[in-house]
């Protein structure tokens, strides 16, 4: 009796760990838990739903011995939607187009300065505190959305999968403490606040900006797209020029 039950359980376990259903469901459940905690304890930025979900999932996978690859086979359906969601950013951008057009010059200047500041300060800090060469190279493109960052990382000799991790951590840090940094430098304009989040922290920064204000969200989406372009074009060129 007991043996039969154990056998059933083992079969269920084998089925679940091989099918995409488990990874997909776990991702959604972990996100719901993250959202619930975020809402329940007063929407504090420190309780970032992505951070909570990532920690829960990584902890569960490690504890149960399921490989990341197996999990991703299911979770990739969620990951895939990043593409259409990026396209959908055209909608808030269109809604705010009048404002965007009026501030085009300011945006271009802020883009170049902000993009260089994020990338150079990351590499410099990692170098000063003794990071390895692979870490430095993987760090350089970490402010832009993962598909671009991973491509650039490969071109400059970094590790694309490590870059993906830096990209996500950058987003979580900005979503969690970005508001504090913006208040510290006393920037009150929603356009500037959103643009800063998008340039320095891609989609997760944009998601946070959209939560707070639609104008900020539109400028964040634009900042993310523009810095994606700027980084994809400039970073490999500069790298090959100097190394």
């Amino acid at each position, binding site marked *: 009796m007991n043996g039969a039950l154990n056998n059933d359980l083992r079969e269920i376990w084998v089925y679940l760990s091989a099918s995409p259903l488990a990874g997909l469901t776990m991702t959604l459940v972990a996100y719901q838990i993250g959202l619930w905690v975020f809402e329940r304890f007063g929407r504090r930025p420190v309780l970032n739903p992505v951070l909570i979900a990532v920690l829960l999932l990584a902890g569960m996978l490690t504890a149960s011995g399921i490989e990341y690859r197996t999990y991703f086979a299911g979770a990739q359906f969620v990951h895939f939607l990043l593409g259409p969601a990026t396209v959908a950013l055209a909608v808030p951008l269109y809604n705010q187009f009048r404002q965007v057009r009026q501030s085009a010059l300011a945006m271009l200047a802020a883009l170049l300065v902000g993009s260089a500041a994020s990338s150079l300060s990351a590499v410099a800090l990692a170098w000063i505190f003794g990071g390895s060469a692979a870490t430095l190279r993987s760090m350089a493109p970490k402010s832009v959305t993962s598909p671009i960052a991973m491509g650039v990382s490969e071109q400059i000799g970094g590790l694309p999968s490590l870059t993906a991790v830096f990209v996500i951590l950058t987003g979580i840090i900005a979503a969690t403490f970005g508001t504090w940094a913006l208040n510290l430098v006393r920037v009150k304009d929603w356009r500037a606040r959103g643009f800063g989040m998008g340039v320095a922290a891609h989609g*997760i920064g944009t998601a946070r900006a959209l939560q707070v204000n639609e104008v900020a969200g539109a400028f964040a989406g634009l900042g993310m797209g523009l810095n994606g372009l700027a980084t994809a074009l400039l970073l490999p060129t500069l790298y090959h020029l100097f190394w």
Partner: protein
Amino acid sequence: MLGTLTILLLCQLAGELIARLLHLPIPGPVLGMLFLFAGLLLRGGVPRAIQDTAGGILRHLSLLFIPAGVGVMTHADRLSAEALPIILALFGSTLFGVAVTAKMMAALLRPTSASADEAANPGAKP
């Protein structure tokens, strides 16, 4: 909903194809965003269905980053061996980047009426 999803995927597909054909360093979805944007400009407005579905997807944009984020576990060794430089570089550069970009932009912008001061309700209108 289904119509909008089809449009989004078509824009992305067109973006991917063109980026590959012309060997552009720009990712397909970013080009796709420009195509959809151009389409909305030509049409002169956002159809209700697109407005709703795009809003729905974007409200949960951060969900979509979770699968890649869990990849943190595959780099646990390096992250613990180089914890100090990685943590300091990520925190320092991210907050510096957000602040510098926003400050630069704010310094060059002409002020409008919609600032964080007055818009006390965060759910705010466009």
